[in-house]
């Protein structure tokens, strides 16, 4: 499978495989349903067997083998090493005891602010979405935050309509330090590239093999220079295990 063109892999799996590569070295990961959960599962069965998956429903050491609709789904409970309550999990989060978190959202901006609340104004929105859930809490508290987004240009904006989950950058960094919060999103992973955070917002760090610079920035509203780093090549173990995730 090494000869494969990465473009033949589905969008969600491409995001999951890049994210899984980034989870090496972590022991505990706060995950939500969807691509975050897939990425963490993929890491756990390949490059980071020591990773403990933690869901806000209270499942710890979980490892869902089938599609999960809710963090409280049977597949999350099934095979978990521990089931406690949400208070315990969020307490661990606030105490800085969970190392890394993965989030997705409807919109992301230049500083990694995420929006899952409204498109338009809060009181009179065009689209009313599901709200924060635990996303705000994770974005504030987790020491290391990775944001995962399919490369759909409408999701990438200069300024999100509503800051559900706060980002990073010069202004927010000061507040994060003042309130003793996590350092905010350090990484943005799309299905085409990897972006890292600087005081001036996201910069393009590296591009997935088989994709061009133009692919990586296509339709994104930010000013993004070509990356200094080599193309992203994914560990063969991860590629071989992609069928194990949904």
């Amino acid at each position, binding site marked *: 499978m090494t000869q494969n063109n990465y473009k033949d892999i589905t969008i969600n799996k491409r995001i999951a495989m890049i994210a899984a590569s980034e989870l090496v070295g972590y022991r505990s990961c706060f995950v939500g*349903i*969807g691509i975050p959960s897939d990425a963490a599962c993929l890491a756990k069965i390949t490059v980071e067997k020591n990773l403990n998956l933690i869901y*806000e*429903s*209270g*499942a710890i050491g979980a490892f869902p083998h*089938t*599609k*999960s*609709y*809710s*963090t*409280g*789904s*049977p*597949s*999350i*409970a*099934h095979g978990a090493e521990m*089931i*406690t*309550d*949400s*208070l315990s999990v*969020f307490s661990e*989060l*606030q105490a800085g005891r969970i190392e890394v978190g993965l989030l997705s959202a409807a919109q992301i901006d230049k500083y990694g*602010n995420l929006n899952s*609340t409204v498109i338009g104004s*809060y*009181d*009179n*929105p065009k689209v*009313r*979405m*599901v*709200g*924060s*859930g*635990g*996303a*705000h*809490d994770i*974005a*504030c*508290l987790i020491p290391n935050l990775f944001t995962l987004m399919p490369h759909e240009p409408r999701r990438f904006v200069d300024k999100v309509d*509503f*800051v*559900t*989950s*706060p980002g990073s950058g010069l202004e*927010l960094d000061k*507040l*994060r330090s*003042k*309130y*003793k*919060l996590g350092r905010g999103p350090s990484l943005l992973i799309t299905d085409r590239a990897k972006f890292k955070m600087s005081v001036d917002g996201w910069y393009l760090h590296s591009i997935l093999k088989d994709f061009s610079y133009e692919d990586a920035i296509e339709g994104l509203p930010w000013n993004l220079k070509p990356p200094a780093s080599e193309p992203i090549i994914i560990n063969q173990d991860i590629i071989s295990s992609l069928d194990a995730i949904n």
Partner: protein
Amino acid sequence: MIEKISNITEAIKKNINDNDTIFIGGFGHLIPFYLTHELIRQNKADLTICRSGADILFDQLIASKIIKKVIFGYIGNPSVGLSHSFNRAYKSDIIEVEEWTNQSMILRLHAARMGVSYLPSKILQIGDKPSNINYLKSTICPYTGDLYSAIPSLKPDVALIHAQHADKYGNIQMWGIDGDTIEGALASDKIIVSVEKIINNEKLKEHPEMTVIPAHRVTSVIELPWGAYPSYVSGYYSRDDDHYMEYDQISRDEEKLLDYLDEWVHSSKTLKEYQEMIGKERCNSLEKGQCGKK
């Protein structure tokens, strides 16, 4: 000992008043659908409903126009889509909304459970705050000078929850995913519980660590097998994911949703009728589905 076993009509009629604030249990798991539908059948008015992550049961209550206010951290149809009735009500301004986050909702309930009027937390100090919680205040640690949000307690009048087992005195046993169900129940003044099965007190005492709410805190217990359908019950039956997906389509259309509510709520006046709506075949299949430890 006082026996707490009741029937659903009496339990809801006696213990829930118009204008009450109601915590509704179930975090993906153990959502008290049938018990809570009784609020609709009895046409209660001006209720406030609350929990951290709210799913389609909240949508149904809002569609039934018995809700004055909703307090939540998340509201939607998990992994499927939006809460369409909530969204319609939100846009047309016919319900009050108080929007928090999951952690802050849980801390609100935890404060009430602990008997204090607020708890300090690091969250909700940066990012946008929904205009409905502009009243949120801050607090400062007198030792370290650390700055915190002051998360105000939320003490519901009544909790409606579903669990696996109870004895006739009202000791409640539950296992599997809890989320904020126990926290919300213990935060509330009254606790009404539907269970899959009433078991005897001797059997219950074999596993005291499975008891999550003690008898003296429980107002009423009602045996309602399949009462958590289309959510699931560890040890009993799996989640009907298809039902949730179909509900997404149905609830986009107000007319279709009224038909749905007529079938699944108004016409299901007895538990037997609800079980018939689910159907034998589906019951068999869900009992065989993944649902965790017996």
